[in-house]
């Protein structure tokens, strides 16, 4: 089966996370038929370049982040790639700190990464070094804070139009 053979080929190059937790790229096994790699943020571009050129992961699916407020490296940036030849997915996880929430941009490798990195920057404040356009895409100019971080107040609104005072429906 193509899934297992491709994953086995990748695993030959990557130590498992139990065996070598300090390696720059670690394999965390296959979860829901997706191969999961954990890696240091510095190893991101080289790993993705290799996955794209050697292993044929030619489709960039998504980048998002997970906020772990109590973890010393607070944000987990999660990438998904798809191989249109082998029809399998791979997941890459990397950690960044709250003080410096930045990873390298993948726009040089995948053009479609631009918009998704913009969204991730909107929602979590992850800055992608090398992305030329990190303007708000879903939010608006002037929005303060990052709404999908755990410490953003759940009901805090930042209206663009000042609210009218509350009044009865009978009053115009």
């Amino acid at each position, binding site marked *: 089966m193509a899934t297992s053979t491709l994953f086995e080929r990748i695993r030959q190059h990557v130590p498992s996370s139990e065996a070598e937790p300090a390696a720059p790229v670690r394999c965390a096994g296959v979860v829901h038929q997706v191969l999961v790699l954990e890696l240091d943020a510095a190893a991101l571009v080289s790993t993705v370049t290799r996955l794209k050129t050697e292993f044929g992961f030619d489709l960039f699916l998504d980048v998002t982040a997970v906020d772990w407020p109590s973890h010393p490296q607070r944000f987990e940036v999660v990438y998904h790639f798809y191989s249109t030849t082998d029809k399998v997915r791979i997941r890459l996880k990397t950690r960044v700190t709250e003080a410096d929430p930045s990873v390298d941009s993948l726009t040089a490798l995948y053009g479609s990464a631009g918009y998704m990195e913009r969204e991730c920057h909107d929602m979590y404040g992850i800055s992608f070094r090398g992305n030329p356009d990190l303007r708000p895409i879903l939010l608006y100019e002037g929005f303060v804070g990052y709404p999908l971080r755990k410490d953003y107040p759940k009901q805090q609104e930042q*209206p663009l*139009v000042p609210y009218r005072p509350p009044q009865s*429906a009978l009053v115009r």
Partner: protein
Amino acid sequence: MYGKPLPVVDQAGRPAATHQKDASFEFLTTRIDDLVGWARKFSLFPYPFVTACCAMEFMAVSGSQYDTDRFGAALPRFSPRQADLLMVVGTVTQKQAPVLLKVYEQMCEPKWVMAFGVCASTGGFYQNYASLPGIDRIIPVDIYVPGCPPRPEMVIDGIMRLQEKIANSRHPLINERV
């Protein structure tokens, strides 16, 4: 020829007997508010500000099954300048709020607003950074139709109540003091 009455003749060519006007229904009296309200309530031209899933319900209620055209409120005008009923159908986000306000301000008086669905009425189950908690925070609303989505009967009931409101309200004419 204009203004000159044609001679009314019988089959033989002789002048026919002139028509006797019946005086009983020559005119009737009413109040101008009632008359204008009656005219306006049956000529609601909606502007569908359709943003979300309630649009499906809006299409259903506009279609032949429920047919809001029976109430004179089905012909959508896709220019706010030609519309007099703003139907806000679906969730309005904070980012869309300036657009909605501009659409409302572009509509000519007299104008009415219907909040279609619970998101437009109150924000519904969205209570977060993204969505506006009810369009009445930024524009005045005449009729609220809650429901997720509202049943077509509720929408029709809302239109009829709005018509009632229009019929019973003041309709000052141009240069008339309110």
